[in-house]
């Protein structure tokens, strides 16, 4: 089962630079491995990650097979207003997962 781990500070002061950590559970099969019988294992990775802050995109990433399984990404953003962070992961074979986190900005 796909599941996400998100770490966003619950509260922040306006203008603070906050770190956001995300982890999505995913096999990230590279497509370059073979089984013991020599069959190629097809690629199955997450290809895109997006973070929106109250609807505005603040971070986007293109992922390649060189990402570890259960891709972990951390980045920063300025806390501008209270609201919601929405995270989206898109990958091969129609993989699509979302997660969200709330922040209170004072």
């Amino acid at each position, binding site marked *: 089962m796909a599941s996400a781990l998100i770490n966003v500070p619950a509260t922040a002061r306006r203008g603070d630079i906050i770190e956001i950590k995300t982890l999505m559970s995913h096999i990230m099969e*590279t497509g370059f491995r073979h089984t*013991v019988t020599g069959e190629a294992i097809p690629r199955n990775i997450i290809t895109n990650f997006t973070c929106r802050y109250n609807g505005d995109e*603040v971070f986007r990433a*293109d992922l390649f*097979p*060189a990402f*570890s399984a259960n*891709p972990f*990404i*951390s980045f920063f953003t300025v806390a501008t207003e209270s609201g919601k962070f929405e995270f989206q992961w898109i990958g091969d074979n129609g993989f699509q997962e979302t997660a969200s986190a709330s922040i209170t900005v004072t």
Partner: protein
Amino acid sequence: MAESDRTTRRQFLATAGGAALGAVSLVHVGPVHATPDTMKAAIRDIVNGAAVRPGKVKLDVPPLVENGNTVPLTVTVTSPMSDADHVVSIHIFNEKNPQPNVGNFYISPRAGRAQIAMRIRLADTQTLTAIAKLSDGSFWSATADVVVTLAACTEEAT
């Protein structure tokens, strides 16, 4: 290739195998691996002919990793991250994984700090390159050497 003056074990075995099996094995000889040349080509695709200068970018990665399957990596770009002067994107490349790209990251002045962290796979001891595109269109880069004892990416599944 610059390395052709010293024969590695892999090259020797590949050549020996090729000699023994003839033309059929030639298809087999080249393993699916990126090379410094394909990395340069991937970088060219991103910078589109612009000059890439060393500096401003810091690539934090352990110099020696035991497990190439999870290598922690942090890229920091020195930038005021203002509307007038900020980092637009960060691109990470490797020399010897099957593909030269590791990731592309797009940020804006709203990031406040141009720093990203992730965990990546490395198939071999190699040099990583991080390139940052700034809002004025200039490109800056940093490289880091990593020694990998257990390779990732192409091992057999069990």
